[in-house]
Protein backbone atom coordinates (compact mmCIF):
# COMPACT_ATOMS: atom_id res chain seq x y z
CA UNK A 1 0.00 0.00 0.00
CA UNK A 2 2.81 2.36 0.90
CA UNK A 3 4.58 1.40 -2.29
CA UNK A 4 1.52 2.30 -4.31
CA UNK A 5 1.21 5.62 -2.50
CA UNK A 6 4.89 6.33 -3.02
CA UNK A 7 4.62 5.46 -6.69
CA UNK A 8 1.68 7.83 -7.25
CA UNK A 9 3.50 10.58 -5.36
CA UNK A 10 6.50 9.99 -7.59
CA UNK A 11 4.17 10.04 -10.62
CA UNK A 12 2.83 13.44 -9.54
CA UNK A 13 6.29 14.89 -8.96
CA UNK A 14 7.69 13.70 -12.26
CA UNK A 15 4.71 14.02 -14.63
CA UNK A 16 2.23 16.27 -12.85
CA UNK A 17 -0.48 13.62 -12.96
CA UNK A 18 -2.18 14.32 -9.67
CA UNK A 19 -4.01 11.31 -8.25
CA UNK A 20 -4.33 12.41 -4.64
CA UNK A 21 -6.77 9.63 -3.80
CA UNK A 22 -3.88 7.17 -3.85
CA UNK A 23 -1.50 8.94 -1.48
CA UNK A 24 -3.53 11.49 0.48
CA UNK A 25 -5.34 9.63 3.26
CA UNK A 26 -8.09 12.26 3.59
CA UNK A 27 -8.90 12.20 -0.12
CA UNK A 28 -8.71 8.44 -0.18
CA UNK A 29 -11.14 8.13 2.72
CA UNK A 30 -13.58 10.46 0.95
CA UNK A 31 -13.31 8.58 -2.32
CA UNK A 32 -13.79 5.21 -0.65
CA UNK A 33 -16.79 6.55 1.23
CA UNK A 34 -18.27 7.73 -2.05
CA UNK A 35 -17.68 4.35 -3.63
CA UNK A 36 -19.30 2.54 -0.72
CA UNK A 37 -22.27 4.92 -0.76
CA UNK A 38 -22.81 4.29 -4.47
CA UNK A 39 -22.74 0.54 -3.91
CA UNK A 40 -25.06 0.82 -0.91
CA UNK A 41 -27.49 3.03 -2.77
CA UNK A 42 -27.54 0.65 -5.73
CA UNK A 43 -27.97 -2.40 -3.50
CA UNK A 44 -30.88 -0.94 -1.52
CA UNK A 45 -32.66 0.22 -4.67
CA UNK A 46 -32.03 -3.10 -6.40
CA UNK A 47 -33.51 -5.24 -3.64
CA UNK A 48 -36.46 -2.96 -2.96
CA UNK A 49 -37.27 -2.42 -6.63
CA UNK A 50 -37.17 -6.16 -7.35
CA UNK A 51 -39.57 -6.87 -4.50
CA UNK A 52 -41.90 -4.01 -5.34
CA UNK A 53 -41.59 -4.76 -9.05
CA UNK A 54 -42.72 -8.35 -8.46
CA UNK A 55 -45.67 -7.09 -6.42
CA UNK A 56 -46.55 -4.55 -9.11
CA UNK A 57 -46.29 -7.18 -11.85
CA UNK A 58 -48.58 -9.41 -9.83
CA UNK A 59 -51.09 -6.61 -9.31
CA UNK A 60 -50.92 -5.75 -13.02
CA UNK A 61 -52.46 -9.15 -13.67
CA UNK A 62 -55.19 -8.57 -11.10
CA UNK A 63 -58.85 -9.21 -11.85
CA UNK A 64 -59.85 -5.83 -10.42
CA UNK A 65 -59.76 -3.26 -13.19
CA UNK A 66 -58.96 -0.29 -10.97
CA UNK A 67 -55.86 -1.97 -9.54
CA UNK A 68 -54.62 -2.77 -13.03
CA UNK A 69 -55.17 0.81 -14.11
CA UNK A 70 -53.42 2.20 -11.06
CA UNK A 71 -50.36 0.05 -11.80
CA UNK A 72 -50.37 1.02 -15.47
CA UNK A 73 -50.61 4.66 -14.48
CA UNK A 74 -47.76 4.34 -12.00
CA UNK A 75 -45.51 2.70 -14.59
CA UNK A 76 -46.34 5.22 -17.31
CA UNK A 77 -45.84 8.13 -14.93
CA UNK A 78 -42.40 7.10 -13.75
CA UNK A 79 -41.18 6.13 -17.18
CA UNK A 80 -42.29 9.29 -18.94
CA UNK A 81 -41.00 11.96 -16.60
CA UNK A 82 -37.35 12.90 -16.05
CA UNK A 83 -35.79 11.06 -13.09
CA UNK A 84 -34.08 14.24 -11.98
CA UNK A 85 -37.42 16.04 -11.72
CA UNK A 86 -38.78 13.06 -9.78
CA UNK A 87 -35.84 13.25 -7.41
CA UNK A 88 -36.29 17.00 -6.90
CA UNK A 89 -40.01 16.48 -6.45
CA UNK A 90 -39.45 13.96 -3.68
CA UNK A 91 -36.61 15.77 -1.97
CA UNK A 92 -37.69 19.41 -2.25
CA UNK A 93 -41.47 19.15 -2.56
CA UNK A 94 -42.35 16.14 -0.40
CA UNK A 95 -39.32 16.24 1.89
CA UNK A 96 -40.37 19.28 3.95
CA UNK A 97 -43.80 17.72 4.54
CA UNK A 98 -42.42 14.80 6.56
CA UNK A 99 -42.51 15.11 10.34
CA UNK A 100 -39.19 15.80 11.99
CA UNK A 101 -37.86 13.33 14.51
CA UNK A 102 -35.66 14.77 17.22
CA UNK A 103 -34.77 17.88 15.23
CA UNK A 104 -33.56 16.08 12.11
CA UNK A 105 -35.69 15.11 9.13
CA UNK A 106 -37.16 11.61 9.05
CA UNK A 107 -35.57 10.93 5.67
CA UNK A 108 -32.28 12.53 4.71
CA UNK A 109 -31.00 13.02 1.18
CA UNK A 110 -29.81 9.41 1.09
CA UNK A 111 -33.24 8.18 2.17
CA UNK A 112 -35.02 10.24 -0.46
CA UNK A 113 -32.58 9.10 -3.12
CA UNK A 114 -33.41 5.49 -2.18
CA UNK A 115 -37.16 6.21 -2.33
CA UNK A 116 -37.03 8.05 -5.63
CA UNK A 117 -34.69 5.66 -7.44
CA UNK A 118 -36.55 2.64 -6.05
CA UNK A 119 -39.86 3.86 -7.44
CA UNK A 120 -38.26 4.61 -10.81
CA UNK A 121 -36.65 1.18 -11.00
CA UNK A 122 -39.83 -0.48 -9.74
CA UNK A 123 -41.65 0.89 -12.76
CA UNK A 124 -39.05 -0.63 -15.05
CA UNK A 125 -38.83 -3.92 -13.19
CA UNK A 126 -42.61 -4.27 -13.18
CA UNK A 127 -42.79 -3.71 -16.91
CA UNK A 128 -40.00 -6.19 -17.60
CA UNK A 129 -41.44 -8.83 -15.27
CA UNK A 130 -44.88 -8.43 -16.74
CA UNK A 131 -43.49 -9.05 -20.21
CA UNK A 132 -41.69 -12.09 -18.82
CA UNK A 133 -44.86 -13.41 -17.22
CA UNK A 134 -46.70 -13.06 -20.50
CA UNK A 135 -43.99 -15.20 -22.05
CA UNK A 136 -44.74 -18.10 -19.68
CA UNK A 137 -46.64 -20.70 -21.72
CA UNK A 138 -50.37 -20.84 -20.93
CA UNK A 139 -50.18 -24.63 -20.68
CA UNK A 140 -47.85 -24.36 -17.71
CA UNK A 141 -50.25 -22.15 -15.79
CA UNK A 142 -53.11 -24.46 -16.69
CA UNK A 143 -51.11 -27.46 -15.53
CA UNK A 144 -50.45 -25.75 -12.22
CA UNK A 145 -54.13 -24.89 -11.92
CA UNK A 146 -55.10 -28.49 -12.52
CA UNK A 147 -52.70 -29.51 -9.75
CA UNK A 148 -54.67 -27.31 -7.37
CA UNK A 149 -52.31 -24.36 -7.03
CA UNK A 150 -53.91 -21.12 -5.93
CA UNK A 151 -53.38 -17.90 -7.90
CA UNK A 152 -50.75 -16.66 -5.48
CA UNK A 153 -48.93 -19.99 -5.53
CA UNK A 154 -48.92 -20.08 -9.31
CA UNK A 155 -47.42 -16.61 -9.37
CA UNK A 156 -44.75 -17.38 -6.78
CA UNK A 157 -43.83 -20.90 -7.81
CA UNK A 158 -44.43 -21.04 -11.55
CA UNK A 159 -44.75 -17.67 -13.25
CA UNK A 160 -42.19 -15.62 -11.33
CA UNK A 161 -39.29 -18.11 -11.44
CA UNK A 162 -39.75 -18.61 -15.17
CA UNK A 163 -40.27 -14.91 -15.83
CA UNK A 164 -37.08 -14.08 -13.92
CA UNK A 165 -35.10 -16.41 -16.15
CA UNK A 166 -36.58 -15.15 -19.39
CA UNK A 167 -36.07 -11.53 -18.43
CA UNK A 168 -32.50 -11.92 -17.24
CA UNK A 169 -30.93 -9.91 -20.10
CA UNK A 170 -33.44 -7.09 -19.68
CA UNK A 171 -32.87 -7.18 -15.92
CA UNK A 172 -29.14 -6.84 -16.47
CA UNK A 173 -29.76 -3.70 -18.50
CA UNK A 174 -32.01 -2.44 -15.77
CA UNK A 175 -29.41 -3.08 -13.10
CA UNK A 176 -26.71 -1.32 -15.12
CA UNK A 177 -29.04 1.62 -15.56
CA UNK A 178 -29.73 1.69 -11.87
CA UNK A 179 -26.04 2.00 -11.07
CA UNK A 180 -25.68 4.76 -13.61
CA UNK A 181 -28.77 6.58 -12.36
CA UNK A 182 -27.39 6.72 -8.81
CA UNK A 183 -25.18 9.58 -10.06
CA UNK A 184 -28.32 11.73 -10.02
CA UNK A 185 -28.20 11.64 -6.24
CA UNK A 186 -25.34 14.11 -6.66
CA UNK A 187 -28.02 16.75 -7.24
CA UNK A 188 -29.38 16.39 -3.72
CA UNK A 189 -25.95 16.12 -2.11
CA UNK A 190 -25.87 12.41 -1.35
CA UNK A 191 -22.18 11.65 -0.74
CA UNK A 192 -21.86 9.12 -3.54
CA UNK A 193 -18.99 8.53 -5.93
CA UNK A 194 -19.60 11.50 -8.23
CA UNK A 195 -20.23 13.89 -5.35
CA UNK A 196 -17.11 12.87 -3.48
CA UNK A 197 -15.03 13.03 -6.64
CA UNK A 198 -16.35 16.51 -7.30
CA UNK A 199 -15.24 17.52 -3.82
CA UNK A 200 -11.80 16.09 -4.43
CA UNK A 201 -11.35 17.76 -7.79
CA UNK A 202 -12.60 21.12 -6.62
CA UNK A 203 -10.02 21.16 -3.84
CA UNK A 204 -7.10 19.56 -5.63
CA UNK A 205 -7.87 21.02 -9.07
CA UNK A 206 -7.22 17.70 -10.76
CA UNK A 207 -10.37 17.47 -12.87
CA UNK A 208 -9.05 15.39 -15.79
CA UNK A 209 -7.41 12.78 -13.57
CA UNK A 210 -10.45 12.41 -11.30
CA UNK A 211 -12.76 12.27 -14.30
CA UNK A 212 -10.85 9.39 -15.74
CA UNK A 213 -10.75 7.59 -12.40
CA UNK A 214 -14.48 8.14 -12.08
CA UNK A 215 -15.28 6.80 -15.54
CA UNK A 216 -13.03 3.80 -15.00
CA UNK A 217 -14.78 3.10 -11.70
CA UNK A 218 -18.23 3.12 -13.26
CA UNK A 219 -17.18 1.08 -16.27
CA UNK A 220 -15.58 -1.42 -13.87
CA UNK A 221 -18.71 -1.71 -11.71
CA UNK A 222 -20.85 -2.19 -14.79
CA UNK A 223 -18.43 -4.73 -16.21
CA UNK A 224 -18.53 -6.78 -13.02
CA UNK A 225 -22.33 -6.67 -12.96
CA UNK A 226 -22.47 -7.80 -16.60
CA UNK A 227 -20.18 -10.73 -15.99
CA UNK A 228 -22.00 -11.73 -12.82
CA UNK A 229 -25.40 -11.61 -14.50
CA UNK A 230 -24.14 -13.62 -17.43
CA UNK A 231 -22.84 -16.22 -14.99
CA UNK A 232 -26.15 -16.21 -13.15
CA UNK A 233 -28.05 -16.58 -16.40
CA UNK A 234 -26.11 -19.69 -17.34
CA UNK A 235 -26.40 -20.99 -13.80
CA UNK A 236 -30.16 -20.63 -13.63
CA UNK A 237 -30.92 -21.87 -17.10
CA UNK A 238 -33.76 -24.39 -17.19
CA UNK A 239 -33.43 -27.02 -19.91
CA UNK A 240 -36.02 -26.65 -22.62
CA UNK A 241 -37.23 -23.22 -21.60
CA UNK A 242 -36.37 -19.87 -23.06
CA UNK A 243 -33.88 -21.01 -25.67
Amino acid at each position, binding site marked *: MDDVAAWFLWLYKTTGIKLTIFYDSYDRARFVEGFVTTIKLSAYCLVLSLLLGAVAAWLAGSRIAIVRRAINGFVALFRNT*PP*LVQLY*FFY*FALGPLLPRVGGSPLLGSFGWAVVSLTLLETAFAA*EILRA*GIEAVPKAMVEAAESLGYSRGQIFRKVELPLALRVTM*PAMTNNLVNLVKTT*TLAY*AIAVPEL*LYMSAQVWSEQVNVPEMMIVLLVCYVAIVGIINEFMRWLEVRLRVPGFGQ
Partner: protein
Amino acid sequence: MSAAGPSQGANCAPSGGSAAAKAASVGAPRSAAGPSQGVARSAWVRGGLRVMHAPARVPTRDGRCTLVGVRTGIALLVVFAASVAIAQVQAPVGKPSVVELLIKWTPLLAGGFLFNLLISVFAMLAGTVAGVLLGFARISPAAPVRGASWTVVQFFRNAPWLVLLFFVMFLMPFELHVGGTTIPFPDWIKATFGLALPIMANMAEIVRGAVQSIPTAQWEAARSLAFSRRQTLWKIILPQCVKRMLPPWMNWYAILTMATTLASIVGVSEVMTLTGRITNAEGRTDLLIPIYSYVLLWFFAYCYPISVWTRRLEARYAER
Protein backbone atom coordinates in the same frame (compact mmCIF):
# COMPACT_ATOMS: atom_id res chain seq x y z
CA MET B 1 -48.61 -1.98 -22.12
CA SER B 2 -46.52 -4.07 -24.42
CA ALA B 3 -48.04 -7.43 -24.93
CA ALA B 4 -44.71 -8.61 -26.23
CA GLY B 5 -41.47 -9.78 -24.74
CA PRO B 6 -39.00 -8.04 -22.48
CA SER B 7 -37.13 -6.45 -25.29
CA GLN B 8 -40.18 -4.46 -26.12
CA GLY B 9 -40.92 -4.02 -22.48
CA ALA B 10 -37.66 -2.23 -22.08
CA ASN B 11 -38.44 -0.14 -25.11
CA CYS B 12 -40.26 3.14 -24.82
CA ALA B 13 -38.45 3.18 -21.54
CA PRO B 14 -37.10 6.59 -20.86
CA SER B 15 -34.96 5.86 -17.87
CA GLY B 16 -33.35 8.93 -16.99
CA GLY B 17 -29.85 10.00 -16.58
CA SER B 18 -29.00 6.67 -17.88
CA ALA B 19 -29.30 4.63 -20.95
CA ALA B 20 -32.37 2.58 -20.41
CA ALA B 21 -33.44 0.04 -22.85
CA LYS B 22 -30.16 -1.15 -24.10
CA ALA B 23 -32.54 -3.84 -25.15
CA ALA B 24 -33.92 -1.26 -27.50
CA SER B 25 -31.02 -1.70 -29.82
CA VAL B 26 -32.54 -4.02 -32.33
CA GLY B 27 -31.18 -7.49 -32.26
CA ALA B 28 -28.20 -6.65 -30.07
CA PRO B 29 -27.05 -10.07 -28.95
CA ARG B 30 -27.72 -9.54 -25.25
CA SER B 31 -31.25 -8.39 -25.78
CA ALA B 32 -32.19 -11.03 -28.29
CA ALA B 33 -33.26 -13.44 -25.59
CA GLY B 34 -36.75 -12.02 -25.31
CA PRO B 35 -39.31 -14.35 -26.74
CA SER B 36 -40.90 -11.64 -28.81
CA GLN B 37 -37.66 -10.79 -30.47
CA GLY B 38 -37.68 -14.08 -32.27
CA VAL B 39 -41.23 -13.56 -33.42
CA ALA B 40 -40.56 -10.04 -34.55
CA ARG B 41 -37.48 -11.05 -36.38
CA SER B 42 -39.07 -13.90 -38.26
CA ALA B 43 -41.79 -11.51 -39.29
CA TRP B 44 -39.19 -9.13 -40.59
CA VAL B 45 -37.27 -11.77 -42.39
CA ARG B 46 -40.22 -12.46 -44.61
CA GLY B 47 -39.81 -9.05 -46.21
CA GLY B 48 -36.73 -9.84 -48.22
CA LEU B 49 -35.82 -7.57 -51.08
CA ARG B 50 -39.49 -6.73 -51.38
CA VAL B 51 -39.25 -4.99 -48.04
CA MET B 52 -39.24 -1.64 -49.74
CA HIS B 53 -42.95 -1.91 -50.43
CA ALA B 54 -45.09 0.30 -48.30
CA PRO B 55 -46.05 -1.50 -45.11
CA ALA B 56 -49.58 -2.79 -45.03
CA ARG B 57 -51.62 -1.11 -42.35
CA VAL B 58 -52.84 -3.45 -39.72
CA PRO B 59 -55.01 -2.64 -36.75
CA THR B 60 -52.84 -2.35 -33.67
CA ARG B 61 -53.55 -2.85 -30.05
CA ASP B 62 -52.51 0.62 -29.02
CA GLY B 63 -56.03 1.71 -28.19
CA ARG B 64 -55.45 0.43 -24.69
CA CYS B 65 -52.13 2.19 -24.37
CA THR B 66 -53.58 5.52 -25.39
CA LEU B 67 -56.34 5.13 -22.86
CA VAL B 68 -53.90 4.28 -20.07
CA GLY B 69 -51.77 7.26 -21.03
CA VAL B 70 -54.73 9.56 -20.97
CA ARG B 71 -55.62 8.25 -17.52
CA THR B 72 -52.09 8.80 -16.25
CA GLY B 73 -52.14 12.28 -17.67
CA ILE B 74 -55.42 12.85 -15.89
CA ALA B 75 -53.95 11.48 -12.66
CA LEU B 76 -50.99 13.83 -12.94
CA LEU B 77 -53.39 16.68 -13.65
CA VAL B 78 -55.36 15.74 -10.55
CA VAL B 79 -52.22 15.78 -8.40
CA PHE B 80 -51.34 19.15 -9.86
CA ALA B 81 -54.83 20.57 -9.41
CA ALA B 82 -55.15 19.19 -5.88
CA SER B 83 -51.80 20.60 -4.81
CA VAL B 84 -52.71 23.97 -6.32
CA ALA B 85 -56.08 23.89 -4.56
CA ILE B 86 -54.55 23.00 -1.19
CA ALA B 87 -51.89 25.65 -1.58
CA GLN B 88 -54.60 28.10 -2.59
CA VAL B 89 -56.57 27.44 0.57
CA GLN B 90 -53.51 27.68 2.80
CA ALA B 91 -52.10 30.73 1.04
CA PRO B 92 -50.96 33.41 3.48
CA VAL B 93 -53.22 36.45 3.60
CA GLY B 94 -52.13 39.40 1.51
CA LYS B 95 -49.77 37.41 -0.70
CA PRO B 96 -50.40 36.47 -4.33
CA SER B 97 -52.11 33.10 -4.73
CA VAL B 98 -50.32 30.05 -6.13
CA VAL B 99 -52.33 30.20 -9.35
CA GLU B 100 -51.30 33.79 -9.91
CA LEU B 101 -47.68 32.84 -9.28
CA LEU B 102 -47.84 29.94 -11.70
CA ILE B 103 -49.38 32.13 -14.40
CA LYS B 104 -46.80 34.81 -13.72
CA TRP B 105 -43.90 32.41 -14.15
CA THR B 106 -45.31 30.33 -17.00
CA PRO B 107 -43.67 32.37 -19.79
CA LEU B 108 -40.26 32.00 -18.14
CA LEU B 109 -40.76 28.27 -17.58
CA ALA B 110 -41.97 27.86 -21.16
CA GLY B 111 -38.82 29.54 -22.40
CA GLY B 112 -36.73 27.19 -20.27
CA PHE B 113 -38.65 24.17 -21.51
CA LEU B 114 -38.15 25.23 -25.13
CA PHE B 115 -34.46 25.52 -24.38
CA ASN B 116 -34.53 21.90 -23.16
CA LEU B 117 -36.18 20.86 -26.40
CA LEU B 118 -33.60 22.81 -28.39
CA ILE B 119 -30.77 21.01 -26.58
CA SER B 120 -32.48 17.67 -27.13
CA VAL B 121 -32.92 18.29 -30.89
CA PHE B 122 -29.31 19.35 -31.41
CA ALA B 123 -27.94 16.54 -29.27
CA MET B 124 -30.08 14.04 -31.15
CA LEU B 125 -28.90 15.33 -34.52
CA ALA B 126 -25.25 15.25 -33.54
CA GLY B 127 -25.61 11.91 -31.79
CA THR B 128 -27.40 10.33 -34.73
CA VAL B 129 -24.90 11.45 -37.35
CA ALA B 130 -21.93 10.39 -35.25
CA GLY B 131 -23.71 7.21 -34.18
CA VAL B 132 -24.46 6.10 -37.74
CA LEU B 133 -20.82 6.57 -38.68
CA LEU B 134 -19.73 4.68 -35.57
CA GLY B 135 -22.26 1.98 -36.40
CA PHE B 136 -20.66 1.55 -39.82
CA ALA B 137 -17.32 1.18 -38.09
CA ARG B 138 -18.87 -1.52 -35.89
CA ILE B 139 -19.68 -3.66 -38.96
CA SER B 140 -16.55 -2.83 -40.88
CA PRO B 141 -14.75 -5.75 -42.54
CA ALA B 142 -11.48 -4.55 -40.96
CA ALA B 143 -10.97 -6.12 -37.54
CA PRO B 144 -9.01 -3.22 -35.96
CA VAL B 145 -11.78 -0.77 -36.89
CA ARG B 146 -14.37 -3.10 -35.40
CA GLY B 147 -12.35 -3.52 -32.21
CA ALA B 148 -11.70 0.19 -31.74
CA SER B 149 -15.32 1.13 -32.35
CA TRP B 150 -16.45 -1.63 -29.96
CA THR B 151 -14.32 -0.07 -27.22
CA VAL B 152 -15.73 3.39 -27.89
CA VAL B 153 -19.30 2.12 -27.88
CA GLN B 154 -18.89 0.11 -24.68
CA PHE B 155 -17.25 3.02 -22.94
CA PHE B 156 -19.92 5.57 -23.76
CA ARG B 157 -22.79 3.18 -23.20
CA ASN B 158 -21.63 2.10 -19.78
CA ALA B 159 -20.60 5.46 -18.35
CA PRO B 160 -23.28 7.40 -16.47
CA TRP B 161 -24.69 10.32 -18.43
CA LEU B 162 -24.04 12.78 -15.65
CA VAL B 163 -20.38 11.79 -15.45
CA LEU B 164 -20.02 12.20 -19.21
CA LEU B 165 -21.67 15.58 -18.92
CA PHE B 166 -19.20 16.66 -16.25
CA PHE B 167 -16.41 15.29 -18.37
CA VAL B 168 -17.35 17.43 -21.34
CA MET B 169 -18.19 20.50 -19.25
CA PHE B 170 -14.81 20.57 -17.58
CA LEU B 171 -12.52 19.29 -20.27
CA MET B 172 -13.89 20.97 -23.40
CA PRO B 173 -12.41 24.41 -24.04
CA PHE B 174 -14.84 27.32 -23.74
CA GLU B 175 -13.57 28.72 -27.01
CA LEU B 176 -11.52 27.54 -29.92
CA HIS B 177 -9.11 29.54 -32.03
CA VAL B 178 -9.07 28.49 -35.64
CA GLY B 179 -6.77 30.72 -37.63
CA GLY B 180 -7.79 34.25 -36.75
CA THR B 181 -11.38 33.52 -35.71
CA THR B 182 -12.57 32.49 -32.29
CA ILE B 183 -15.38 29.98 -32.00
CA PRO B 184 -17.01 30.26 -28.59
CA PHE B 185 -18.53 27.23 -26.89
CA PRO B 186 -21.16 28.44 -24.46
CA ASP B 187 -22.35 26.17 -21.66
CA TRP B 188 -25.34 24.80 -23.48
CA ILE B 189 -23.35 23.80 -26.55
CA LYS B 190 -21.02 21.84 -24.31
CA ALA B 191 -23.98 20.24 -22.56
CA THR B 192 -25.46 19.34 -25.94
CA PHE B 193 -22.21 17.74 -26.93
CA GLY B 194 -22.04 15.85 -23.63
CA LEU B 195 -25.55 14.50 -24.09
CA ALA B 196 -24.84 13.54 -27.69
CA LEU B 197 -22.06 11.14 -26.63
CA PRO B 198 -24.22 8.40 -25.07
CA ILE B 199 -26.76 8.85 -27.89
CA MET B 200 -23.95 8.30 -30.36
CA ALA B 201 -22.89 5.02 -28.73
CA ASN B 202 -26.44 3.73 -28.53
CA MET B 203 -27.22 4.76 -32.11
CA ALA B 204 -24.17 2.80 -33.20
CA GLU B 205 -25.60 -0.29 -31.55
CA ILE B 206 -29.00 0.31 -33.13
CA VAL B 207 -27.42 0.59 -36.57
CA ARG B 208 -25.35 -2.52 -36.02
CA GLY B 209 -28.30 -4.47 -34.71
CA ALA B 210 -30.50 -3.41 -37.61
CA VAL B 211 -27.90 -4.23 -40.25
CA GLN B 212 -27.25 -7.61 -38.69
CA SER B 213 -30.93 -8.39 -38.52
CA ILE B 214 -31.15 -8.18 -42.32
CA PRO B 215 -30.88 -11.72 -43.68
CA THR B 216 -27.50 -12.60 -45.17
CA ALA B 217 -29.30 -13.67 -48.31
CA GLN B 218 -29.79 -9.98 -49.06
CA TRP B 219 -26.04 -9.45 -49.11
CA GLU B 220 -25.50 -12.50 -51.24
CA ALA B 221 -28.25 -11.53 -53.67
CA ALA B 222 -26.75 -8.05 -54.00
CA ARG B 223 -23.32 -9.53 -54.58
CA SER B 224 -24.60 -11.80 -57.28
CA LEU B 225 -26.09 -8.71 -58.94
CA ALA B 226 -22.59 -7.16 -58.88
CA PHE B 227 -23.28 -4.47 -56.29
CA SER B 228 -20.19 -3.24 -54.46
CA ARG B 229 -20.13 -3.34 -50.66
CA ARG B 230 -20.87 0.36 -50.39
CA GLN B 231 -23.71 0.12 -52.92
CA THR B 232 -25.18 -2.87 -51.11
CA LEU B 233 -25.05 -1.02 -47.81
CA TRP B 234 -26.54 2.23 -49.10
CA LYS B 235 -29.04 0.97 -51.65
CA ILE B 236 -30.23 -2.36 -50.27
CA ILE B 237 -29.44 -2.82 -46.60
CA LEU B 238 -29.92 0.65 -45.13
CA PRO B 239 -33.32 1.37 -46.70
CA GLN B 240 -34.56 -1.78 -45.02
CA CYS B 241 -32.92 -0.79 -41.75
CA VAL B 242 -34.48 2.65 -41.46
CA LYS B 243 -37.83 1.18 -40.64
CA ARG B 244 -36.59 -1.02 -37.85
CA MET B 245 -34.27 1.63 -36.48
CA LEU B 246 -37.03 4.20 -36.20
CA PRO B 247 -38.80 2.95 -33.03
CA PRO B 248 -35.63 2.61 -30.91
CA TRP B 249 -34.42 5.92 -32.29
CA MET B 250 -37.59 7.68 -31.14
CA ASN B 251 -37.31 5.88 -27.86
CA TRP B 252 -33.85 7.31 -27.38
CA TYR B 253 -35.13 10.74 -28.27
CA ALA B 254 -37.64 10.53 -25.43
CA ILE B 255 -34.90 9.39 -23.05
CA LEU B 256 -32.67 12.21 -24.19
CA THR B 257 -35.38 14.83 -23.76
CA MET B 258 -35.78 13.80 -20.17
CA ALA B 259 -32.03 13.70 -19.69
CA THR B 260 -31.71 17.34 -20.75
CA THR B 261 -32.69 18.29 -17.19
CA LEU B 262 -29.26 17.01 -16.19
CA ALA B 263 -27.84 20.14 -17.77
CA SER B 264 -29.19 22.09 -14.81
CA ILE B 265 -26.71 20.31 -12.55
CA VAL B 266 -23.80 21.58 -14.60
CA GLY B 267 -25.12 25.12 -14.65
CA VAL B 268 -27.13 25.52 -17.85
CA SER B 269 -30.21 27.71 -17.30
CA GLU B 270 -32.86 25.27 -18.45
CA VAL B 271 -36.25 24.56 -16.98
CA MET B 272 -35.06 22.88 -13.77
CA THR B 273 -32.62 25.67 -12.98
CA LEU B 274 -35.36 28.21 -13.57
CA THR B 275 -37.78 26.28 -11.35
CA GLY B 276 -35.21 26.29 -8.57
CA ARG B 277 -34.62 30.03 -9.01
CA ILE B 278 -38.33 30.77 -9.02
CA THR B 279 -38.94 28.88 -5.79
CA ASN B 280 -35.96 30.67 -4.25
CA ALA B 281 -37.15 34.05 -5.42
CA GLU B 282 -40.67 33.54 -4.15
CA GLY B 283 -39.56 31.85 -0.94
CA ARG B 284 -42.91 30.13 -0.60
CA THR B 285 -42.92 26.50 0.52
CA ASP B 286 -46.54 26.06 -0.60
CA LEU B 287 -45.39 26.68 -4.18
CA LEU B 288 -43.04 23.68 -4.24
CA ILE B 289 -45.40 20.81 -5.03
CA PRO B 290 -47.53 22.74 -7.54
CA ILE B 291 -44.54 24.02 -9.49
CA TYR B 292 -42.65 20.74 -9.62
CA SER B 293 -45.74 18.78 -10.64
CA TYR B 294 -46.35 21.50 -13.24
CA VAL B 295 -42.91 20.83 -14.75
CA LEU B 296 -43.49 17.05 -14.53
CA LEU B 297 -46.74 17.56 -16.43
CA TRP B 298 -44.95 19.39 -19.23
CA PHE B 299 -42.41 16.66 -19.73
CA PHE B 300 -45.10 14.02 -19.59
CA ALA B 301 -47.16 15.86 -22.18
CA TYR B 302 -44.16 15.97 -24.51
CA CYS B 303 -42.70 12.49 -23.98
CA TYR B 304 -45.80 10.37 -23.63
CA PRO B 305 -47.09 10.89 -27.18
CA ILE B 306 -43.63 9.95 -28.48
CA SER B 307 -43.71 6.78 -26.44
CA VAL B 308 -47.21 5.87 -27.69
CA TRP B 309 -46.26 6.61 -31.27
CA THR B 310 -43.13 4.48 -30.92
CA ARG B 311 -45.17 1.56 -29.67
CA ARG B 312 -47.63 2.01 -32.51
CA LEU B 313 -44.87 1.96 -35.12
CA GLU B 314 -43.30 -1.04 -33.43
CA ALA B 315 -46.54 -2.98 -33.42
CA ARG B 316 -47.20 -2.12 -37.04
CA TYR B 317 -43.75 -3.20 -38.21
CA ALA B 318 -43.71 -6.33 -36.08
CA GLU B 319 -47.02 -7.61 -37.37
CA ARG B 320 -46.19 -7.37 -41.04
